[in-house]
């Protein structure tokens, strides 16, 4: 595995985690804003 690939992969993980958390927040927000159908 080339060095550059490992580094790039690590970057993907880092940015992926950051973006992933933003997506997670978005999902929770959508769920909270739904009218309470309980």
């Amino acid at each position: 595995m080339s060095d550059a690939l490992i580094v790039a992969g690590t970057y993907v993980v880092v940015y992926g985690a950051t973006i992933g958390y933003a997506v997670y927040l978005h999902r929770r927000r959508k769920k909270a804003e739904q009218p309470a159908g309980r």
Partner: protein
Amino acid sequence: MKRVQIMLLIAALALAAGALLAYSAPLDRLQGEFTRLLYVHVPTLWIAFLAFGLTALGSVMYLIRKKERWDRLAAGSAELGVLFSVVGVFTGMVWGQAVWGQAWDWSDARLATTAVMIFVYIGYLALRQATADPEKRARRSAILGTIAVVQVPLVYFSVNLWRTLHQTQSIRPDGTTMDPEMLVALLVNVGAFSLAFIALLMGRMLVTRLELVAGADTELAGDTVSPPRLSEIEDV
């Protein structure tokens, strides 16, 4: 909501700029391609410690002021703290394995403290998840947060002590003698990740508030106090 979205946009732009700089900065002779890991490793760990500090602050302030916003700060920071600690440790391990042939090093006080912090957070989040009543949850986690504030620095101190006496100083470069281009790339990335953290934290706190408002189906206040049934007390 709008504010959060604007912050997220700014953060995204900053991160993109950071990535560009990371890939255009010169490489260190010894580390080669792995030099670039510095630009994500340092910022993520910096944020992890910042987040921990905010959780601590939120916890203490909640106990003093009892304002729910402090609790939201503490909780949101804790979540982000776990995320960025784990990512930071991961990047550190990749770097350590590649450059030093050793992914982990217990004698590095910062590493050890980060590891302990991660588990403190996990316990903190587990406690929050297990407590249904919002006020109880806020109080209890604030107390745990305050206990952690006192003990975690001790962890750092004790590992340092242990390392000094063992004379097994692992020389993990802090990047103190750095090419100015590298320094700029690093600072921009630290800034960018900080912005991302702030944006995500704001978003998290907002979502928590939305959920609190929407969560009308949590237990009623009445069941927190019940009279003690004195006759049932065991006679010890």
